[in-house]
């Protein structure tokens, strides 16, 4: 029945020790919780007006040059046969333009694809080393020196944007548009916006671009459909689109919720410290209890045996 003092101390120390270890191990002081929704300053953003794009691919060329990507063959960007298939950004191109047939006009509609620079990016909340970051200026940037190549950002991104350098064995990196962050901080406009000859891409503060987009929809209701893609999708993105035909006809994802993606894991992460604190206490208590139960049992059987032998 009785636990001797030494034993009791030993067990208590074991339980306490695991508690301390648990807190250290779980890094409870950081509490894992994703950063709370902050009221964000007005960031830089981009507005692509798909009704203006003529599919000349100058933005693709400017992007390759600005980001020092491997050079393409001469004439590659003038070759319009690429429109025969739907392309996506990859390790060789951070932005691509695709062509879509439509009934509204004789000409196809062109859609430029690149990172949408979510206001609360899923990729940044997925990255376990903080290689992907939302900058206060607006762009979501990537630090190759931290990346371990787990590719969780690719699974997390609702737009299928981050691309991985699968055929590089020594320094494979994630490739995605950075909204020309180095240019922005030097007071320049992103390369694609600068290169666009028909002003289909506008760079500016997000609130101004939203106003501009609303104004265009209001004044030319025949030209535009009444939807700014990226205003609310996944909690809002810093790349916005205007279109003359429904976005679903242009391969845009339409089933996205308006909840920012980091919200989806926040609840789980908040539960973590709870388990870290309660589990050791509960289980430690239980193990001491179970141990006592066993000792009692043994004592009883031994007394019974003794009684039996007496009889």
């Amino acid at each position, binding site marked *: 029945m009785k636990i001797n003092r030494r034993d009791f101390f030993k067990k208590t120390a074991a*339980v306490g020790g695991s508690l301390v270890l648990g807190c250290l191990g779980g890094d409870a002081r950081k509490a*894992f919780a994703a950063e709370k929704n902050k009221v964000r300053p007005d960031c830089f953003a981009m507005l692509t007006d798909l009704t203006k794009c003529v599919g000349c691919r100058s933005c693709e060329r400017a992007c390759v040059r600005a980001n020092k990507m491997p050079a393409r063959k001469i004439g590659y960007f003038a070759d319009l046969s690429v429109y025969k298939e739907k392309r996506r950004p990859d390790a060789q191109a951070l932005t691509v333009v695709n062509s879509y047939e439509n009934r509204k006009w004789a000409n196809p509609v062109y859609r430029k694809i690149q990172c949408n620079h979510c206001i609360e990016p899923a990729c940044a909340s997925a990255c*376990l*080393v903080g290689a992907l970051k939302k900058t206060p200026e607006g762009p979501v940037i990537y630090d190759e020196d931290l990346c371990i190549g787990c590719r969780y950002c690719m699974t997390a991104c609702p737009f299928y944007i981050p691309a991985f350098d699968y055929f590089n064995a020594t320094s494979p990196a994630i490739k995605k548009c950075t909204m020309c962050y180095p240019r922005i901080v030097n007071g320049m406009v992103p390369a694609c916006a600068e290169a666009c000859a028909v002003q289909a891409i506008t760079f500016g503060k997000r609130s101004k671009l939203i106003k501009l987009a609303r104004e265009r929809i209001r004044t030319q209701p025949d030209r535009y459909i009444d939807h700014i893609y990226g205003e609310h999708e996944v909690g809002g993105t810093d790349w916005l689109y205007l279109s003359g035909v429904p976005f679903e006809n242009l391969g845009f994802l339409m089933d996205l919720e308006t909840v920012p993606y980091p919200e989806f894991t926040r609840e789980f992460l908040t539960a973590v410290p709870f388990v870290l604190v309660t589990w050791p206490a509960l289980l430690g208590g239980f193990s001491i209890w179970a141990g006592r139960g066993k000792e009692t049992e043994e004592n009883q059987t031994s007394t019974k045996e003794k009684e039996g032998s007496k009889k």
Partner: protein
Amino acid sequence: MRENVNPIGSAISARSWVREKFFLGLAPTDYIKRLITPFNIIAAVLVIPGLFLIGIRFYQGLGAVTPASQEDPWGLFLNWGLFAGVPLSATGFVLGTAVYIFGLRKYYPVVKNAILMGFLGYLFAVIFLLIDLGRPWRLPFPMFVSFGTASVLFLVAWHVALYLSCQFLEISPSIFEWSGWRTLRKWALAFTVALTIFGVMLSTLHQSALGAMFLLAPGKLHPLWYTPYIPALFFISAIAAGLCMVILANLLTKRFLRDQADARYLTSVDSITIDLGTATSFVLITYFALKVVALAHGDHWDLLTTSLGRWYLLEILGFVLLPCFLFVYGSRKRNVGVVQFTGIFTLLGIILNRFNVSLIALNWNLPNREFVHWKEVVIVIAVVTIEILVYRWIVTRMPILRDHPEYEGEH
């Protein structure tokens, strides 16, 4: 212990120690001759092509051996090695809890084996990670260089690393008994309860965190599998996986490693297997109930008639509910064969679930998908074969399926 003062004598004794511990008491040449068995030849045939392909992967990049999809970035190395491998390695924490926390001494004979399997399972999950990561040499980055604390994967990384160390310490008394280091063994044993509690805590969190990783893919994971309950579902099914892996190990060790086990192990495994079957039936019915709650909560009943819906029904009816009933039947009738069969069946079900979540139902809406590349399969087979060889190497040397005669009655 060492009475040999003269250097030649101690050199001889060191050599005989190595021979005793590593070569099963045989001369090296005899030992090598003894290695040529049909089993080892088959193992070599399975391992060598895989090692060759791993070499290619590190020479030409991950794309040389995988489908290299930009939409589906995770392949078999993670589907098998991490998402299925980690729940199958829940053996140590499940049996450790039963024996050291709940005081169920009946299961003591199998607990060391369960912890060893858990340790190796996590070790090889890390090896699969090293093959899969773009820059595996940066594996310690989340621990020492840069902390992405908002990431569920950050939690998984820390916990897998800590739990691997924790399980190494848990299994270390057997290693010290084998090497004959008494003081270290005594020290290691003193931490058993604390380590077990620490292990349960870590397991609860990272088993469920593996599921929580997919919470970040609501538009990509099929609605029948995407549910806020996914962390709980992953945790509960991991308990079932741990129990069933012990059932499988009981079956295989009794058949193939009989000479390494003591009488206590051999006489008790079958009855332990039946008890584990009963326990698993409770876990499975809980799991099934939560699956149904999740289905109702998601309210996607209409999707059940689609082809993926039928696949989903096959998973929860055929591989969860059916084995649950079979376990009840087998343990009622005390039929070891039925329980063993059902254990394997349940393991297949859990592997199926993890493959569904991390491969088949993920990005289900994309056209023209390539699930696996044959080279990935060859590599996975090779790594699993190495894992089995390492397990056999340890079990044929260290007191895992038996108690060391010098320390009997001390546990």
